[in-house]
């Protein structure tokens, strides 16, 4: 545990770091410092997170009663569509890579910055350009096609599909640029002595994520181009009356959008590896297995897209193949869970907030992952496909997995990012609220789904109401759990106790520099002589904490 020093507003000796190196709007908007860009991203995605959350609350309010009593069917359809688009493309995909990844990768590698700092800044501007189109589409009336944009519905729709598609198309390039930057950085910018197998698992996970970003996103881009041609010219290649095939769109779409869910969960797994190691002070059990399981998930992720289409009239043979391959994703996921659990054995386990999030993550990820087995089982998927069972499954992975890990990571690295500690009591409370609220929101949806409530329904049969009320009640608790960190994080920036350079202690290079780090990250390039996750007294004290006067 940290001996949290009293909140003192004045530091013992003012030190120059990346936050106070220079001031003013211009110094932020034109920065090429990866740490500042990470904070710019943090601001952007937080806006979209709460926007998407607002849509979600509207959905849950509408579903409180079986009848459509708050909004029209069209308004409801726009709600779930925009909730999906905003949360997936503008929050989940950039969340961990663009914020924590951007901030930490160079620090973990002992580099001064990412390989292409200007491209890094460009990616943030590209993200915002896409965001402008998307916001325009939302304000101009929204989109009602579902985030999946299935043809021919999305071609016939009179809503703002085109600007929304342009927004997603542009936003994709920010994802590509981030991935490209990470891969080059990991290959060429490692500090002396930092071999591949000394890298933190966070870096391995981001490497795998980046592979998906660069290989998958362009396919979505070209699919959107083809969809745009179809909308604008009224003639396209998914048009059944021309002899085209609407199901081809689904193939192209899921070729990216299934790997995309691994863009959301792989970095989260990387964060969890860091947390489990740091708070049990042990090397991750089976380090190389966990490292390669990330790559395995990235590779298999490209071979399973057809499991979204078992009832879409694709052939029985294709269904068999995709079902078979889908089970291969389960193995590396299971390997990770077992290795994390084994890491705890004979460790020194603390119950700090980030670790609570890690525990929560593992529990929810087991449920989320194993319900994936239900959906990959052909005969069962025929029944649960397009029901609330699917909705519950992917929320367990994306919210119970990715968002929990994101929050856990934010708490863990907050002292490094801001140089301040957050209030531990409030943080524990919010972790608990998120966990309880989340389960109450989404567990009933598994039951709803198996009973047959289809997804994207504005009105539903009366006998589904009990579970829907539970779900809505949970969502309100979840909302409180999400707003709390926002409040105390902002509070801690001013009033939080000053953090040490290595408060937990962590083992990575990011802890071998002051908090917050200087603009160039390290006073001199570190030379690495130890393996990942070597928790010893000497290691934790390696960086001279006396400099911080604590």
């Amino acid at each position, binding site marked *: 545990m940290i001996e949290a020093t009293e909140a003192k507003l004045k530091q013992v000796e003012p030190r120059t770091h990346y936050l106070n190196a220079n001031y003013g709007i211009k110094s932020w908007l034109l920065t090429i410092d990866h740490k500042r860009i990470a904070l710019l991203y943090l601001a952007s995605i937080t806006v979209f997170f709460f926007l998407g959350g607002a849509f979600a609350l509207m959905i849950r309010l509408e579903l409180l009663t079986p009848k459509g009593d708050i909004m029209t069917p069209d308004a409801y359809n726009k709600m779930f569509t925009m909730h999906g688009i905003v949360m997936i493309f503008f929050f989940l995909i950039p969340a961990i890579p663009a914020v924590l990844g951007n901030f930490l990768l160079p620090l973990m590698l002992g580099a001064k910055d990412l390989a292409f700092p200007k491209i890094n800044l460009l990616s943030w501007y590209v993200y915002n350009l896409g965001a402008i189109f998307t916001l325009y589409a939302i304000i101009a009336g929204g989109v009602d096609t579902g985030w999946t944009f299935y043809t*021919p519905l999305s071609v016939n729709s009179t809503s703002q599909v085109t600007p929304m598609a342009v927004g997603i198309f542009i936003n994709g390039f920010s994802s590509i640029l981030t991935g490209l930057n990470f891969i080059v950085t990991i290959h060429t910018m490692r500090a002396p002595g930092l071999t591949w197998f000394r890298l933190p698992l966070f870096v391995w996970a981001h490497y795998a994520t980046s592979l998906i970003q660069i290989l998958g996103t362009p396919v979505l881009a070209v699919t959107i181009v083809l969809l745009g041609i179809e909308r604008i010219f009224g003639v396209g290649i998914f048009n059944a*009356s021309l002899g085209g095939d609407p199901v081809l769109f689904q193939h192209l779409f899921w070729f990216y959008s299934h790997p995309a869910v691994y863009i959301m969960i792989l970095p989260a797994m990387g964060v969890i590896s860091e947390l489990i190691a740091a708070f049990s002070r042990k090397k991750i059990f089976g380090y190389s297995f966990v490292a390669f399981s990330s790559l395995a998930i990235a590779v298999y992720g490209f071979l399973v897209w057809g499991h979204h289409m078992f009832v*879409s009239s694709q052939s029985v043979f294709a269904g068999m193949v995709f079902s078979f391959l889908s089970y291969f994703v389960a193995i590396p996921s299971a390997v990770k869970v077992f290795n994390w659990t084994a890491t705890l054995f004979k460790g020194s*386990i603390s119950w700090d907030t980030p670790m609570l999030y890690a525990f929560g993550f593992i529990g929810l990820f087991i449920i989320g992952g*194993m319900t994936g087995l239900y959906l990959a*089982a*052909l005969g069962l998927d025929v029944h649960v496909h*397009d029901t609330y069972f699917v909705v519950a499954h992917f929320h367990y992975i994306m919210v119970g997995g990715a968002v929990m890990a994101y929050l856990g990571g934010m708490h863990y690295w907050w002292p490094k990012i801001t140089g301040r500690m957050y209030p531990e009591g409030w943080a524990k409370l919010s972790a608990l609220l998120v966990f309880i609220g989340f389960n109450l929101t989404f567990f009933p949806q598994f039951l709803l789904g198996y009973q047959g409530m289809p997804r994207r329904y504005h009105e539903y049969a009366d006998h589904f109401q009990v579970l829907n009320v539970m779900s809505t009640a949970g969502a309100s608790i979840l909302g409180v759990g999400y707003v709390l960190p926002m409040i105390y994080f902002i509070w801690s920036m001013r009033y939080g106790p000053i953090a040490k350079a290595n408060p937990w202690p962590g083992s990575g290079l990011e802890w071998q520099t002051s908090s917050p780090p200087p603009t160039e990250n390290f006073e001199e390039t570190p030379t690495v002589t130890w393996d990942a996750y070597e928790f010893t*007294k000497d290691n934790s004290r390696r960086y001279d904490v006396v400099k911080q006067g604590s």
Partner: protein
Amino acid sequence: MFLFLLLENWIPFAPEQGSSVAETVDWLYVFLVSLTIFFGVAISLTIFYFAMRYRRRSDDEYPDSIEGSHKLEALWIGIPFAIVMVIFWWGASVYFTVFRQPTDPLDIYVVGKQWMWKFQHPDGQREINELHVPLGRRIKLTMGTEDVIHSLFVPAFRVKADVVPGKLTSIWWEPIKTGKYELYCAEYCGTKHSGMIGYVIVQEPAEYQAWLSGGAGGGSLASNGEKLFSQLACNSCHKTDQSGRGPALEGRFGKSEALQAGGTVTIDENYVRESIVNPRAKIVAGYDPVMPTFQGLVSEEQLLQLIAYIKSLGDKKPGELPGGTATPTTAQPSAAKPAPEQPKPSTPTPAVPNKK
């Protein structure tokens, strides 16, 4: 167990088992739920136990490092792999049960459109958003759509299939008890997606017969198809005596035919549909690609009538005259409300009275 029953009354865990496959699907589900509970509880308890047992007691504890173990890794790669392969095999076998074509089914034709289901019985009765079927028959739905993708879903029967523009899809089930079962559209299809719902009403055979005799709206499907067949002048090429430019259609349905381009094709609903809208896609060996396309000239419903007619010719020998069509009565079945039809996009109007 008692608790389970208590919960079951408050929140049913599964919809009613209304078809022959429902139980099979539920058993797979029960197996997976047990598996999830087992692993979920086992891992959570292990984590909780470790977290308590090895909790940090002082701030300068630095435990010894443990590297990992290849034996354990092999174990927890091997066992999950074996388990998921069992699930795969089990899921696939259930899938085959659900998708294997049934023998001697009762054929019902379905058209989905925004936002309603139209059903046509073989004897010509039409229904909107309600489907009456008899107990003791396998029911096969052959489905087409007039606009976007829909998906017909009956939770109690554990069946679902998308209805995709440009092709016909089908599902089947065998009801095992009478009752009224909810039917949903499961593929998001626009504004009133959640209103595209209805009921499947399973009746005793006698009751079903009584319902049927309540009226057939204007001739059986096959006889309507026969009328169309002559109105569209199909019979000028597809002559019964094999003298036309196209093959005679009697006795062909369900058979396998050699193709001009090599290979064979089974003459099924989808092949007949394709042959009407894309005549040149798969030409039967020995014929020239001279048939024009009827895309846009026949509606999705008329296509289904033509298919039903050609299917009815399937049992005949070439040269035998088709007969035995149902006597049309004029009364409407009470269930079928006249549907509000939207005007169709301007397509060349065929010289066929649209029976609505």
